[in-house]
C-alpha cells in the first residue's frame, strides 16, 4: 500500500511516519469524539475527471459522498480508495431542478453527469449493479461542481496553488478519457466499463442538458483561479 503513496521514489506528502504517541492521541480522540458528519458519508463513487484548464490531464477520482437531501450531495474527493489516499478536492452534486435555478454565470462552473454514467465510467466499487441502479438513474440527471486542491497527478508533493476547476468526461474529443486510465481502473476492480455501458442502455438520458454546463463544449474555454494580493478589509491589524 505504501507504493501507492510514492511517485518516483518520493513520498507524497513527505514527512516522518506517525509516532506511536500520535497514534495513541488519535485513538483517544476517536473514542471521545463523535465525528458525526464523517459517519454520514455513505457512498463511494469511482469515476474520472479532467482539468478544465488542460483537458489532456485526466485523473481517476474517488468520491465519498454524503446526501443532504434528495437533490443534493457533497463529496470529499481522494486520489485513491486506500488509507494512504490524498484528499484532493470537494465536489457538490445537485439535481437538474436545483441546477436550473442557478444564475448562468454560476452554471458555467458545473458539469453534467449523464455521459460518465451511461458509458460505465462512473462506478460504485463492490456494489452489485442492480442494487445501485436507482441511484445511477438519479445521478444521471445531476450536475456537479468539482474543485481540486491538490494536483497529485503532476507529482505535487504538497498541495500547491489555488484550487482548480475540474470537468467531467464527455463524448466529444477533448472530453474523452484516455483508454489506458480506464483499463487500469477496470482491472483494479475486476470490472468492465464496456459491459456496464451495455447494461446501462436502459438508464434514461436526461431530456435536456443545460448548455451552460460543460462550458468548454460550446465555448472552447476552461477556467482558472487567479489570486490577487489586495488590502485586507480589517478593523484590527493583520497579521
Amino acid at each position, binding site marked *: 500500500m505504501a507504493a501507492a503513496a510514492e511517485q518516483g521514489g518520493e513520498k507524497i506528502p513527505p*514527512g*516522518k*511516519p*506517525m*509516532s506511536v504517541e*500520535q497514534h495513541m492521541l*488519535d485513538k483517544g*480522540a476517536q473514542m*471521545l*469524539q*463523535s*465525528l*458525526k*458528519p*464523517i459517519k*454520514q458519508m455513505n*457512498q463511494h463513487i469511482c469515476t474520472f475527471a479532467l482539468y478544465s484548464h*488542460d*483537458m489532456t490531464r485526466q485523473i481517476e477520482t474517488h468520491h*465519498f459522498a454524503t*446526501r*443532504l437531501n*434528495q*437533490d*443534493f450531495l457533497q463529496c470529499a474527493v481522494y486520489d485513491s480508495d*486506500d*488509507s494512504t489516499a*490524498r484528499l484532493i*478536492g*470537494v465536489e*457538490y452534486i445537485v*439535481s437538474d431542478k436545483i441546477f436550473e435555478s*442557478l444564475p448562468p454565470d454560476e452554471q458555467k462552473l458545473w458539469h453534467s453527469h449523464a455521459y460518465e454514467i451511461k458509458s460505465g465510467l462512473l462506478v*460504485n*466499487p463492490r*456494489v452489485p449493479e442492480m442494487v*445501485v441502479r*436507482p*441511484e445511477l438513474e438519479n445521478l444521471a440527471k445531476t450536475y456537479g*461542481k468539482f*474543485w481540486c486542491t491538490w494536483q497529485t497527478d503532476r507529482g505535487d508533493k*504538497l498541495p500547491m*496553488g489555488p484550487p482548480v476547476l475540474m470537468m467531467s468526461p464527455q463524448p466529444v474529443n*477533448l472530453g474523452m478519457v484516455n483508454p489506458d486510465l480506464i483499463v487500469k481502473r477496470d482491472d483494479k476492480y475486476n470490472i468492465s466499463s464496456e459491459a456496464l455501458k451495455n447494461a446501462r442502455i436502459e438508464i434514461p438520458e436526461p431530456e435536456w442538458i443545460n448548455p451552460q454546463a460543460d462550458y468548454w463544449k460550446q465555448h472552447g*474555454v*476552461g*477556467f*482558472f*483561479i*487567479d*489570486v*490577487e*494580493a489586495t*488590502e*485586507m*478589509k480589517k*478593523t484590527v*491589524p*493583520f*497579521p
Partner: protein
Amino acid sequence: MEAVNVLTHPQIPGEPTQTSTTLLEKATATIQGFGPVNKIHQHLCAFHFYGHDMTRQVEAHHFCGHQNEEFRQCLIYDRPDDDGRLIGIEYLVSEELFLTLPDEEKRFWHSHEFEVKSGVLFMPGVPGPIQRQDLEKVAKTYGKVFHFWQVDRGDSLPLGIPQVMMALTRDGQLYENLAQDVENRYNISFAKERENRAYMTGPAHGIHPMANGGGKGLQTVLREVECKPAGVDHSAARVFV
C-alpha cells in the same frame, strides 16, 4: 469589534431524501470500503476569516486525518452535525515541510500559534491534558484553507469560486459574540485554556514573514482560458503582487 456574522445554517433547496434512497445508501455504506475516510480521527473547532476580509468570520469544524507525523488533511464543516455542510478543506504541515515551499506558495498558509495559545482552537469532547499533547504540536504548524461555500452570507448552495481563508493571529480579531457562542455551547473558557497553554511555543524559526498572506489580503478571481491545444501550458497560476 461589533457583533456580526451570527452563525447561519441555511436550508438547502430540494426535497427530503426518499426512503428508497436512504435504504439504498445504507446498503452502499455497509458494503463499500471507506479507507481514506476511516483515517479521519479528530475533530477540531476553530475560526476562519476571508483572506481579503477579516470582518467576515466563520466557525469551522475540522475533521482531520494524518498522512504522516507532519501532514494532516481536514474536511471543514459548518457544524459538527449529521447535516453539517462541507464548506472547505484544510491541510496542516509541520514547520519543516512549510519551509520547503516556494515563497509564492507560503502566502496561502497561515500560522497556528496564536489560535492554539489563545485557547480558541480546541478539540471538542477531549479533556484538556490530552488535547494539549496534540495541540502543542499544532501550535508549530501552518495551515492552508479554502472554503467553497459561503454560509456566512446565507448561501443555501455552494456558489461562486473558492475563497482563500486566513486564521486568527492576534487578540481583538475574533468577534466576541462568536467566541461566546462557542464557549457557551461547549461549556468551556478560552481564557482559562489560554492559561493552561502558556507553556506552548510556536514555530522554532518564528512565524515566517511570507505566511498569513505575506501580510496582504488574498482574493481569488475567475479567469477564462482557451481549452489547451497540445503544447500550451496554462498550468502556471498567476499570483499578482
